[in-house]
C-alpha cells in the first residue's frame, strides 16, 4: 500500500519535471542555440587571437628593454669607476683637513691664559681677537713658525655640538683676523663698524 503511494508520488514528481522541462525547452528552442554558440565560440577564438598578438608584440619589446638594461649596467660598470671608492677618497681628504682635538686643546689652553691676562671685561668678539693677537705675539717671540695644519693622528673623540660650534667660531675669528691684518680684501670693507672700533 505504502509502496503504491510512493510510486504514485514519484510519478507525479516525474510528471511535474517533464512539464517543467517541456516548457523550458520550448522557450529554449525558440532561440537558435547552435547559432548563438557559434558566435560565442568565434568571439572566444578572436579574443584568444588578440591575446596571442598582444603577446607577440609585447615579447620583443620586453626583450629590447631587458637588453638595454643589461647594456646600461655593463657600460656603467666599465666606464665609471667605483662610486663608493670615490666617495671614500673625498671623505678621507676632508678628514685630513679637519683640526684634531689636540689642536683644539692647545688653542683652548692659550686662550685661557690670555683671558686671565686681559681680564673678562672685553666682549666675546673683542676678547677673541685679543686672544688671537696674543697667540701671534707669542709665536713671534718663540720664533716658531705658524703651526702647520693639524692632521688626524689619532681617533677623534666624540664632540658635542656645542664644542664643535665653539671650535668653528674660533677658527672663523682667526681666519677673519688674518684677512684683516695681512690682506685688504672685500671682507674688511664689509666688516661691521663695531669690529673696527675694537681694532682702534
Amino acid at each position, binding site marked *: 500500500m505504502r509502496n503504491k503511494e510512493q510510486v504514485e508520488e514519484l510519478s507525479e*514528481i516525474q510528471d511535474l*519535471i517533464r512539464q*517543467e522541462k517541456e516548457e*523550458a525547452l520550448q*522557450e529554449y528552442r525558440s532561440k537558435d542555440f547552435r547559432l548563438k*554558440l557559434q558566435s*560565442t565560440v568565434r568571439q*572566444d577564438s578572436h579574443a*584568444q*587571437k588578440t591575446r596571442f598578438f598582444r603577446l607577440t608584440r609585447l615579447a620583443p619589446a620586453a626583450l629590447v628593454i631587458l637588453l638595454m638594461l643589461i647594456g646600461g649596467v655593463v657600460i656603467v660598470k666599465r666606464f665609471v669607476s667605483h662610486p663608493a671608492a670615490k666617495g671614500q677618497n673625498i671623505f678621507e681628504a676632508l678628514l685630513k683637513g679637519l683640526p684634531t682635538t689636540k689642536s683644539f686643546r692647545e688653542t683652548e689652553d692659550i686662550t685661557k691664559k690670555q683671558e686671565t691676562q686681559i681680564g673678562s671685561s672685553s666682549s666675546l668678539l673683542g676678547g677673541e681677537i685679543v686672544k688671537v693677537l696674543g697667540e701671534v705675539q707669542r709665536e713671534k717671540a718663540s720664533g716658531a713658525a705658524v703651526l702647520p695644519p693639524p692632521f688626524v693622528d689619532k681617533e677623534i673623540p666624540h664632540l658635542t655640538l656645542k664644542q664643535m660650534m665653539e671650535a668653528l667660531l674660533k677658527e672663523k675669528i682667526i681666519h677673519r683676523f688674518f684677512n684683516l691684518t695681512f690682506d685688504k680684501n672685500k671682507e674688511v670693507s664689509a666688516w661691521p663698524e663695531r669690529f673696527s672700533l675694537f681694532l682702534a
Partner: protein
Amino acid sequence: MTANDRHPGGQNIFEELMSFHEQIFVVCLGFSKNLQDAEELTQDVFLKAYENIDSVKDPSLARQWLFRIARNTCLDHGKRNRQARFVSLTEAGESAEWRSPEGESIQRDELRILKEAMEHLPGKLREVFVLRHYGELSYAEIASVLKTKIGTVMSRLNRARQRVMARIREARDEK
C-alpha cells in the same frame, strides 16, 4: 582556431557533443532553476568543452565528460550565486512565471513546491536527482560522471526522492 586545429578528431567529437545541448540545458535548469541562467550555463559548458576537447582521450566517454563539465559548471555557478540563489517562496513564484501560462496557478504552485523541495536537498543528493530526472542518465552514466559507485548513486537517488516527496507532502498539507 577551430577544434579541428588542436585535436585530430576534435571537430567530430565536438559536433557529436553538440547533439546533447538540450539535455545539457535541462540539467543546467535542474541545477539553477532559472531559464536564463540555464541558457548561459549551457553556453559556458560548451565553451569549456570546446576549449578542452584535447583532453578527451576516449570518444566513447565524451558524453559523460560533457555532463561532468555541466555538473561542475553548475556547482561553481551555485557557489558564486549562493546568496542570489537563496530565494524566498514569493520570489520563487515570480521567477517561475516565464514557464507558466496565465491561469495555470495550480501547476505553478506545484512547480514552485518542487523547486523549493529540490533547493532543500543536500548537494550530493541533488546532483544525482538532477542527472537522473532532468538529464535522464542511467545509473552507470551517473556513476561515471560523479566518479562513484552505482550502488552509491542508487542509494543517493532513493534518499533524494524520499526527501523531495516528503517536502511536497508537507507543502500540500500546509495548504
